[in-house]
């Protein structure tokens, strides 16, 4: 049985109560909207990118504790990183949120190779035990990915 404590880790509740990088960025920052049509959550991600580096990121919108904490943690994790690094972080996070057959069949932990390199984000690993909530955790990341796609083309990073 999935335990509620696996989902609502203290660090997640902390990010929910005091979200990081809230606010807007003026143009020419990239502005991207994300929606979760099932629950009505809405999110806007602002990206300030200079010379292939994500200099600043801000978020507005509303959602549940998982979506708010995930977006807050995401902003802290990717701020100051190169677009290449941000793309890689998105990929790693999507890996983390993948439901593996073994975890549906039994209690086996999903095989995530580099969980230790993910810092606070690893606290969101418990979300996969609550498959309905995965969309909450990935909303911000998909919106960030969309913002980069809008800027550089699908999966583009601007680097040669």
């Amino acid at each position, binding site marked *: 049985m999935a335990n509620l404590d696996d989902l609502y880790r203290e660090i997640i509740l902390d990010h*929910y109560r005091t979200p990081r990088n809230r606010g807007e960025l003026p143009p020419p920052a990239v502005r991207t909207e994300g929606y979760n049509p099932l*629950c*009505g959550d809405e999110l806007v991600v602002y990206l300030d990118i200079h010379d292939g580096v994500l200099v600043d990121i801000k978020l507005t919108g*509303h959602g*549940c*504790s*998982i979506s708010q904490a995930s977006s807050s943690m995401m902003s802290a994790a990717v701020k100051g990183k190169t677009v290449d690094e941000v793309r890689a972080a998105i990929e790693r996070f999507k890996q983390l949120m993948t439901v593996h057959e073994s975890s549906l069949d039994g209690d086996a932990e999903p095989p995530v190779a580099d969980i230790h390199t993910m810092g606070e984000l690893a606290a969101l690993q418990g979300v996969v035990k609550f498959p309905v909530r995965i969309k909450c955790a990935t909303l911000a990341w998909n919106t960030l990915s969309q913002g980069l796609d809008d800027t550089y083309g699908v999966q583009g990073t601007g680097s040669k």
Partner: protein
Amino acid sequence: MSSYSPRRVRDDTPLLNREINGRPITYLDSASSTLPPRPVIEAMSRYYELRHANVHRGVYQTAVEATDVYEGARAATARFINAPRGVDEIVFTKNTTEAFNLLAKSWGAAHLKAGDVVLVTEMEHHANIVPWFQLRDQIGIEVRFVPVSDDFRLDVSGLDRLLEGVKLFSFTAASNVLGTRNPVKELTRIAHDHGALVALDAAQSVGHQPSDVVDLDVDFFCFSAHKMLGPTGLGVLWTRAAILESMPPFLGGGGMIADVRVDGYVPANGPTRFEAGTPPIAETAGLAAAIRYLEGLGLENIARHEEDLTADALKRLANEFDGRVRIIGPADAVDRGGVLSLDVDGVHPHDVAQVLDQFGVCVRPGHHCAKPLMRRFNLAATARASFGPYSLTTDTDVLLEALESAVTMFG
């Protein structure tokens, strides 16, 4: 003679024997879907075990019996809502949503033209909004909304003006978010005075109070079997036979034709004109069983019981959380169904529902397919608890215990 005991309904409902997270299930999501009692499940099993064949086709024994099951359910449905011309007025659809699509795409496209107005309300389910927007985009009708007031009821102060030029007033008998029951007969009379037809979304009322299309005097009546202890996959559109005859076919294919040649087709008459392809047959057996079961309980009795449950729950929710739990809906149990949309201060509805699940409590978080209404009250979502004929005050006890835990956890 009816004999209604919610405890007996509980005993009849197998799913209520389940445990969730080590606790007995507390099912408070009947506004989404009601739980079928054993007679409904058995009617569908028996159909597949003994009678299954395609309908309206074969002459062999089981094909005749399958057709009897299907057409018998149509007769039971006609009786259940008091359709004046009986089976000739009952169209089986997939659900309430398809019934409204049929209404908009067949009746609407044939009888409305650019500039004609369809009036709906701000408390409608998307099923009674989007098909009209689609028709607007196709032929240029106008879609107008009756506003909802701060006391969660329709604001009818400007209704006479809103009804100007209206060909159809399409509204819900009861809000799936607020619980509000609308004054159907009064609204219908006013609409008819303005020359408009009336369509009623009865999805939220049909399993909780008596339905009589003659008494209500509406012109269209849409509902789903799974909101009245029946199975999913089956809905109903009722309309007066004269109107039905004026409606062109909706989906094309087998079963809905009188003749097909290489240069065209002739549609069938009556309800089958709208029932293309092999229909859900076992589900109609389930619906007929649900109707008999509900008639045995007595819908007036169910309405009274749910009103008592609602009055008790409203009082306790208002008293026990120091104002941290707000009801998005009328605060007293008058003209109101057993739907309790909760806004918990500082706790997102998804998180409320997640914590409640730990207690085995099933509620629905989200916008409930009523986004215009949610926007009206500046909400993205609510956590909605709703009662059915099997609900008891003990369900409210567990709800309050679990809510306390959610409030503490995110406090």
